[in-house]
């Protein structure tokens, strides 16, 4: 089982997407306790546990159904998250993956331009479902800058490694921007001013998933 870094590829195929999804699951599992701790300060303290359960369901679906195309893989991931995750994060991440999967139907390999299209579709779907905007202290605060960054890289015809690195940096920046914000959506709204000073756990988990794009791939 050797490893190869995704950024060295010229484009991304279905197995690479599958590997990306597995890396998301690993990142979530590794940081689940931290996510739950963050959520205990703002929400009901279950974000890490919820995502851990969600990505176990994702693994099961990938193993059982073997979706072959990029669109089918992303749709399966979205459906698994919607149906297995309690709380708001399942339907929100689910909407993003399902939308990306729908837009990706027919795509066999994706380059930076397609990646930007999928990220934009995912971000729009998440914003639509959550009725959130940048600055509401949500997942969207990390996802939207990543999508914007990919769009910019596509316009500049940047290679995949550069585009991914920039997207990760943008997501990190977006995640950090949630700390001083007052929550305007979700359970943290209850806290009002007291939500200030804490990172939004959704923005953190979103950053982890964006970062998984640029992590070394694990061959299946």
């Amino acid at each position: 089982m050797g490893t190869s870094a995704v950024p060295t590829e010229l484009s991304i195929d279905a197995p690479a997407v599958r590997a990306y999804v597995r890396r998301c699951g690993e990142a979530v599992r590794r940081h689940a306790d931290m996510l739950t701790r963050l959520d205990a300060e703002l929400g009901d303290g279950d974000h890490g546990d919820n995502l851990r359960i969600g990505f176990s369901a994702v693994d099961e679906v990938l193993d059982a159904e073997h979706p072959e195309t990029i669109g089918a893989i992303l749709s399966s991931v979205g459906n698994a998250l919607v149906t297995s995750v309690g709380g708001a994060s399942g339907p929100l991440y689910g909407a993003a993956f399902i939308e990306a999967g729908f837009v990706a139907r027919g795509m066999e390999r994706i380059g930076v331009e397609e990646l930007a299209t999928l990220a934009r579709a995912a971000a729009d779907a998440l914003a639509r479902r959550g009725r959130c905007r940048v600055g509401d202290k949500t997942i969207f605060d990390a996802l939207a800058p990543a999508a914007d960054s990919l769009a910019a890289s596509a316009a500049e015809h940047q290679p995949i490694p550069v585009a991914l690195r920039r997207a990760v940096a943008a997501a990190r920046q977006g995640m950090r921007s949630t700390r001083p914000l007052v929550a305007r959506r979700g359970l943290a709204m209850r806290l009002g001013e007291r939500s200030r000073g804490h990172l939004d756990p959704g923005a953190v988990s979103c950053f982890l998933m964006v970062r998984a794009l640029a992590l070394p791939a694990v061959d299946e």
Partner: protein
Amino acid sequence: VTLEPGDTRSAREQLDAEHRRIFREAQRAADTIFSHYQLSQLLATHDRTRPMAAAVLDELMHVCDAAGGGIWLADPPNGELRLVARAGDELMPPTGELVAQLTTGADAAEDPWIVVALEDTGILALSAPSDAGHIDAAARRFLSLVRHELAGALRSAQLRETLELERTELSAIIENATDAILVFDAERRVTRANPAAARLFDRDARAIVGERCDVLYACAPIEAIGRCAPCPVARVLERAEPLDGEERIIVGNGGEPTSVVISYAPTRIGPEGPSRAVAILRDTSELARLAELRRGFLASISHELRTPIALIKGYAETLLHLQPDPSDARRYLVGIDDTTSRLGHLVQQILDATQLAAGQLVLDLEEVDLGELVRETVDQLSIGARAERPRLALAGALPHVRADRDRLRQVLENLLSNAQKYGDRTPIGVQVEASATAVEIRVSDDGIGIPADERELVFEQFHRARNVRERGMSGSGLGLAISRRIVEAHGGTLGFDPDAGSGTTAVLRLPPLGAADLRDATTLAPAGSQP
């Protein structure tokens, strides 16, 4: 749409469009479910009506893309709609207009405001953003989907607040009641005891909770049935009927017995709910004391009133029927005059005592030279008195006091006449001295004295010392009680010097004028509130 191998490009596009439409519809349905979920979560995390209404309104404006809105809830007593949350800046139509729009059932599709009934809990109104002109159909469908849940949650919050308010009021009543209140569960164990119960049993209320009635009441239960044969608590629990007027002696921790009358009432929520009994224990010791006092009053007053009346009648009859010679007649008339004065004095004392008991003593305060007042009083009392004139010792330069001159004179007269009456013809001494904190008047005699254990009791109304009673000396038992009340109303004290040796020495202390502790009160509190 199905695709055949030879189909044109437009057919493929048609299929793709169909695919897209189905996908969008499914996502919209999922969006609605998610909105519903978020709203439910919001309802579950609020328990107060107003914050809940404000959060609901905010969320609905978000979901329905509304520019503003309001939530009105029916006030429980009269059902009048009250605005509990509003948002947005635009002019809101009057409540009546919104209700009218609701009740006519007019199609609201094109209205700038839509109004939704929250069952019988209230109404919700949202205004369309100015660019759209109306709230769209999907939003209206969403509102009709969630309105029952909203109504239920808001009603529950209202109910919770009402219950909480009632519970707080009830607790305040129970905690501050002067009657002891106990609640017994089905096992006859105390589940609640108020502070008055703690005082009655002379124990911490928390120690009483959990105790069974027989332990608390110190009954001797029959072992086989675990309770007394006529256990009032068991009876109330079993029959679910109230029980009034159970008399009982409660012996508190300190060993002090208290007579109480207990009323029991059963409480139960529904036929299957747990059964409890509420007991209200009224301390009747005070009533018994008052009854005793009344008996004492009647006995002593009837004797005191009857004696002078009989005397007057005797003198008058003699004058009427026996036509005595002028010198005897004059003697009888003097007797009538003396006796009516005594009777008048007695009636005045009774009136004073009644006034004091009702807390109606009004002092007419002025600056009084105490030395002068004492001298005057002694002089007046000496005129016509058979006894020797009291020896008067006044310290020089006595400070003045702030006092009601007539009331203070009344006190001095009472002390001097007591000294004459019980002094057994011994010399009476009146001594007036001043210190930094008090002006002190001591009236002493060398007579029969007051038994040590009765030195305080003689200040109680109608109480008369036993050596006085044994000698059959007349008196109302009111003079000292009245005097002490008057002195206390002046901020002073009145008592007997326990170290004065033989006889009696009454000590009256008054604050000198300008003393910091001079009370400004000119009216006494009712007798019951005095310690």
